[in-house]
C-alpha cells in the first residue's frame, strides 16, 4: 500500500494538537527512549534508520547529527526550518497544524543526539495560524515539564522567500538581513552564532519519533531502500483531488497523480506541465513518465530527486496567463536577491 500514515498517524481520529491526546497514542515515549541512550548510540540509531532529509536535498539526517562537534566548547544548536515558501509545497503546515507535538518530540530527540539545549523553530511570518498552533503546543509541552534541560523557541520570519535557504535562515535568526552565507564553513561546524548547528526540515524532525517507536532497523525496511520511510506529498493545480498525501517513499508518481489524487479533471492522460520540484527544479515536459519518487537520483537511470515533493499539475495551459503576471514585489526586491540552494 502506498498510503501509510505514520507522520500524520492519529490525526484523523484525534485532536493531536492537544498534549493529552498525543500522549494517549504513545506520544513522547520516544523522548524517554532516546534520553535513556547516550548521544553516540542515538546518532548511530539515526544513521542506521537512514532517514533522508525531507526538505529537498535528501542529506542523511543521522550523518548530519554526526558532523556536529560536541566538544567544540560552544553550545550546539538545533534549528528547524519551517520557512516553507517553495511554491507548491504545503506539507510542513500540515505537520505543524495537525501533529505539532510530533515535531516537538522530534526536536527533543534530535537535540539529545547533539547535546543541544536550545532548539529554534524558524517559521515563516506568513504562517500566523500555524504559528499560534505550534506555539500553543510548545507552551503546553513546556509547562508539562517534557522539555527537561532543553528549551524550544519558535521564531517567526517576516516575509523573505530566501530565508528557506539554511544559511540565510541562520542570518535571519541572528537578526540580520537574510542573506545566504558562503560555504564552507558549513553549519555543523559554524552555524548559528558561529556555533555547531544542525538544521533540518519540519518533516525530517517530525519523522524522528517514528524511528524511536519502530527502531531503526524496522524503519529502514519501510519503502525505498535508498530512502526509507514515508513522506508527505503536496499535489496541486489542475488535479481532481489536490492536497497532501502521506505515501511510502518509492511510490511511482503515476499512482500519486492518477490513483490517489484522481488524475486531471478532464481525463486527459498526459500531463504536459509536470514539474519535479527538486532543488535543481527540473522541468519534465511531455507525457508523464513512470517517475519513481526516490529522494536521490540513481545516476544514469533517469530518475530525479524527490525535491520537496510538491508536484503542481497543469494540463490546461489556457488557464495560465499568456504573459505571466510577473514576480510579486517581494520577489523583485532584496528579499529574493538569490535563489536558494
Amino acid at each position, binding site marked *: 500500500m502506498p498510503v501509510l500514515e505514520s507522520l500524520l498517524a492519529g490525526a484523523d481520529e484525534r485532536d493531536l494538537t492537544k498534549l493529552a491526546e498525543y500522549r494517549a497514542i504513545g506520544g513522547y515515549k520516544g523522548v524517554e527512549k532516546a534520553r535513556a541512550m547516550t548521544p553516540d548510540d542515538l546518532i548511530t540509531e539515526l544513521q542506521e534508520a537512514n532517514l533522508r532529509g525531507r526538505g529537498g536535498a535528501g542529506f542523511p539526517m543521522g550523518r548530519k547529527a554526526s558532523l556536529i562537534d560536541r566538544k567544540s566548547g560552544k553550545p550546539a544548536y538545533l534549528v528547524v526550518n519551517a520557512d516553507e515558501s517553495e511554491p507548491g509545497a504545503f506539507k510542513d503546515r500540515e505537520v505543524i497544524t495537525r501533529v505539532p507535538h510530533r515535531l516537538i518530540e522530534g526536536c527533543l530527540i534530535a537535540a539529545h543526539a547533539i547535546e543541544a539545549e536550545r532548539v529554534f523553530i524558524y517559521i515563516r511570518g506568513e504562517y500566523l495560524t500555524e504559528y499560534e498552533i505550534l506555539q500553543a503546543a510548545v507552551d503546553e509541552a513546556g509547562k508539562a515539564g517534557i522539555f527537561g534541560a532543553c528549551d524550544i523557541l519558535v521564531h517567526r520570519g517576516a516575509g*523573505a522567500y530566501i530565508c528557506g535557504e539554511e544559511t540565510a535562515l541562520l542570518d535571519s535568526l541572528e537578526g*540580520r538581513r537574510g542573506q545566504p552565507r558562503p560555504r564552507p564553513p558549513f553549519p555543523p561546524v559554524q552555524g548559528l552564532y558561529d556555533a555547531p548547528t544542525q538544521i533540518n526540515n519540519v518533516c525530517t524532525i517530525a519523522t524522528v519519533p517514528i524511528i524511536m517507536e519502530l527502531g531503526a532497523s524496522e524503519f529502514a525496511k519501510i519503502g525505498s531502500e535508498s530512502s526509507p520511510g514515508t513522506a508527505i506529498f503536496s499535489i496541486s493545480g489542475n488535479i481532481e483531488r489536490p492536497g497532501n498525501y502521506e505515501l511510502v517513499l518509492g511510490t511511482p508518481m503515476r499512482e500519486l497523480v492518477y490513483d490517489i489524487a484522481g488524475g486531471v479533471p478532464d481525463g486527459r492522460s498526459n500531463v504536459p506541465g509536470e514539474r519535479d520540484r527538486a532543488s535543481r527544479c527540473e522541468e519534465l515536459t511531455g507525457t508523464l513518465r513512470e517517475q519513481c519518487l526516490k529522494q536521490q537520483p540513481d545516476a544514469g537511470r533517469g530518475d530525479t530527486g524527490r525535491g520537496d515533493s510538491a508536484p503542481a499539475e497543469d494540463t490546461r495551459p489556457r488557464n495560465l496567463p499568456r504573459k505571466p503576471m510577473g514576480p510579486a514585489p517581494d520577489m523583485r526586491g532584496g528579499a529574493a536577491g538569490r535563489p536558494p540552494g
Partner: protein
Amino acid sequence: MALADQIHQVAARYPDRRSAMLPALRMAQERYGWLSPEALAEVADALEYTPAYCVSVASFYDMFHLEPVGEHEVEVCTNLSCALVGAREVVRAFESELGISAGQTTDDGHVTLRVVECLNGCGYAPVIAVDHRHRHPVNPDDVPGIVEELRAGS
C-alpha cells in the same frame, strides 16, 4: 507594557539580543501600524542598535512596512498553483471592488491590496490572506462579500 519592556523580555530569551530584531520590529509594527522613523528609533534604543541598522533589516523583509499601510491587508497569491485556477481574476475583482491597483491603499486608508508570492496553500487554491489569515479557495464571486465584510468591520 511599554514597547521597550516588551522587547527586553523577548531579547532575554535569545543567546544574543540581536536575534530579537525581527520580533521587536514586529511588536513595534503591531503597536503603531507601520514602522515609522519614531517606531524604528524605539526598537533601536531598546536593542542598542542604530536606527540605520534597524531600517536595513526591516527593509529586507516583505512583511515590514516602512510606509503607512491600510487598516486591513488583503494579500492575493498569484504563484503557480493559484495562477492555474484563476488568481489573476481574483486580483482584478479586488482591484475593481476597491477601486485601486494591487500595491495601493484605498483613499480612506482602510484596505491595502497586495499581490504576494506563494502562501503555500496550493492544494486549496486560489489562496488569499486577509489580515494574515488565510482563506481558500477564493473566487472572484467571493470578493464583493469580503470587501463588504472589511468595510462593515471597521
